[in-house]
């Protein structure tokens, strides 16, 4: 037998290829059947990466954990992560790809409300189930989406009373200039007025603004009892830095609906970040046995690369994935409608963040909320509010009565 050069090359290539592919093949072979595709779309780079990194790490972790336990319905989960680079255009592109090319069973993704509203219609049109695992301004009413994060009735409603009780009635709001900041500032205004206080002014900042000098002077001129920030992303961290540099930390305290949602408290020095108070449905520092066990496993797996799970975004992604998995188990199918119906039975999970229950009427969740203060770059819970229902969205949205509804309601606050 003569061995031509081409044959030899083919043999070598095949051998090399199968060696490389072996781990993947074996992993799937162990679980049998073809994998269930799950797509994650989170910003791994760009200004929003401070939120995206922990979300991606938690989704990876949740999928690996499930695969190690035997997958779903005897099939392994194949996770496909896309990085939209903090760019809305890429979000729409990847959402279309997830629905049409990957034929994903579910998409977990979206960080800013702008990105969620960009991909929500696409995933609905292509009948692809969508989980949005971020705290946001509330009001989304669409049967194809499940919002597992906290909303203003759950977090702002706890943060504002804390501010007014401890610091004073009148506040000054600084917020990011897109739908999240615009709508959240209305909620803050609503709760401040209900508490008998006044909003002295609301300033909006595009996501790339880094110079807050004029704003800081304006705030001092207005003499608020406290500043409430709904600032978003890496550039806006300058606000806290410049606030501390202007020596205002002692005279006017800051509360925030977003601070700590990424790793803001780690990026700032203790002198800059200490004393800022936030409200989320999870902090890495939450003290309970489930959270302790979760963090142990999480850190054992990721080692030094484990991101800080500041506020709730990473944890909500972990919970969102597990809620979906539980629904698939109950439905015994990955069919979209079957899974939605299973979720609408009001699936409830005990999680590291406390008990989380799907609210069938709104597709939001009932969860525990913590008001926590930043000390030495970590959060310490100041107050805990167990089992808060999504009252804001529930006041406008009833998917049981109107299953075909598809819009985002905005709170109507007279300003």
């Amino acid at each position, binding site marked *: 037998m003569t061995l031509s050069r081409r044959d030899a090359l083919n043999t070598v290539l095949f051998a090399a290829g199968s060696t490389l592919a072996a781990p993947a093949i074996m992993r799937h072979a162990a679980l049998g059947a073809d994998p269930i595709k799950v797509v994650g779309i989170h910003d791994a*780079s*760009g*200004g929003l*990466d*401070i939120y995206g990194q922990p979300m991606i790490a938690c989704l990876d972790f949740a999928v690996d954990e499930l695969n190690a336990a035997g997958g779903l319905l005897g099939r392994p989960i194949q996770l496909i992560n896309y990085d939209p*680079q903090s760019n809305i255009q890429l979000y729409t592109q990847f959402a279309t790809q997830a629905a049409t090319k990957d034929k994903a069973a579910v998409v977990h993704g979206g960080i800013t409300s702008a990105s969620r509203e960009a991909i929500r219609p696409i995933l609905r049109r292509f009948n692809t189930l969508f989980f949005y695992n971020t705290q946001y301004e509330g009001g989304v009413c669409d049967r194809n989406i499940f919002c597992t994060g906290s909303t203003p009735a759950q977090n702002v409603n706890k943060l504002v009373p804390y501010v007014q009780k401890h610091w004073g009635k009148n506040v000054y709001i600084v917020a990011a*200039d897109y739908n999240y900041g615009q709508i959240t500032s209305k909620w803050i205004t609503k709760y401040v007025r209900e508490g008998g206080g006044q909003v002295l002014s609301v*300033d*909006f*900042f*595009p996501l*790339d*603004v*880094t*110079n807050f*000098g*004029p*704003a800081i*002077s*304006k705030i*001092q*001129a207005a*003499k608020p009892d406290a500043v409430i920030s709904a600032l978003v992303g*890496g*550039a806006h*961290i*300058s606000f806290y*830095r*410049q606030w*501390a*540099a*202007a*020596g*205002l930390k002692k*005279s006017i305290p800051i509360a925030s609906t977003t601070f700590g949602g990424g790793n803001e408290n780690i*990026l700032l*020095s203790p*002198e*800059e970040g200490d004393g800022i108070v936030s409200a989320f449905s999870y902090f890495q520092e939450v003290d309970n046995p489930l959270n302790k066990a979760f963090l142990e496993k999480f850190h054992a797996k990721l080692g030094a690369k484990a991101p800080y799970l500041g506020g709730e975004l990473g944890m909500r992604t972990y919970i969102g994935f597990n809620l979906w998995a539980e629904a698939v188990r109950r439905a015994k199918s990955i069919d979209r409608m079957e899974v939605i119906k299973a979720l609408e039975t009001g699936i409830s999970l005990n999680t590291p963040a406390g008990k989380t229950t799907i609210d069938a009427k709104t597709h939001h969740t009932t969860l525990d909320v913590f008001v926590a203060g930043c000390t030495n770059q970590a959060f310490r819970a100041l107050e805990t509010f167990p089992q808060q229902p999504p009252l804001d969205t529930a006041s406008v949205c009833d998917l049981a009565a109107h299953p075909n509804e598809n819009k985002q309601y905005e709170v109507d606050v007279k300003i």
Partner: protein
Amino acid sequence: MDYAVVVALQIVSGVATLVIVSLGLAVVFGMMRVINLAHGEFLMLGGYTAILASGQGINRWLSILVLPPLVVGLIGAVVERVLIRRLYGRMVDTMLATWGLSLAFIGGVTMLFGNSVTGISAPFGSFGIGRFHVAGYDMFLVLASVVLSLIVWAVLKLTPAGLIARGTMQNAEMAAALGVSPERVYALTFAAGAALSGLAGGLIAPVSGVLPTMGTAYIAKAFITVITGGAAMLTGTLVASGLLGSVLTVFTFLTTPVFGEVALLVMAIVLLRLLPRGITGRFLRRAL
């Protein structure tokens, strides 16, 4: 009254920031006519130098004021040698090449340090004006812009090197005939411009934080300032910074940062419509 003082200080610091981020470009573009679209990335590299150096425990002043101009000046010298030197007098080609360079810098830094924001705390505390507090570092930036402008002026006006540089930019052949090597002068001037940009990056790092794409936030403003300034590079840049920086800050105070930037652009467009050759194309023509 106190408020008026605070607003005035903000205006001054807004102007100073414009001067600081534009000076390097004034040398490279205003003087040498090299359209350096990587100017913003020189700032960014200066910022990263400052952050990395202070992260290594190097003295804060050394890492803000000394290392960034040295490092970026060196990078500038290399860039001139490898890229810019081949393209003198070819405006469009220079634009393309420096744009590519800027993308390469952004990509490289993203690969090395990740696409996320880092920062250092601003030195100095704050000081009070009545019941207002102002960051001391803002005032330091004002001082820095004055000192930098004075240094640039003194070097160009009072030293033989400055005279030679100005002469070479005006008429390279005549300078060569007089025994000056234009190549060396161009290289040194470009490196000096890059060093100024690097220093600017180091100076603004504590205020703005540092990110691979931070240059894009400054390059447009720097070009607008230098172009509006017109032919006399130093005077033009200072006058234009004064006008545009005041408009930017005043409108930011009155409305929001968005309209502040809009006002700056409108102001620049109106100025260039009325004075197509820049402010110093009409006034102060003989200034430096």
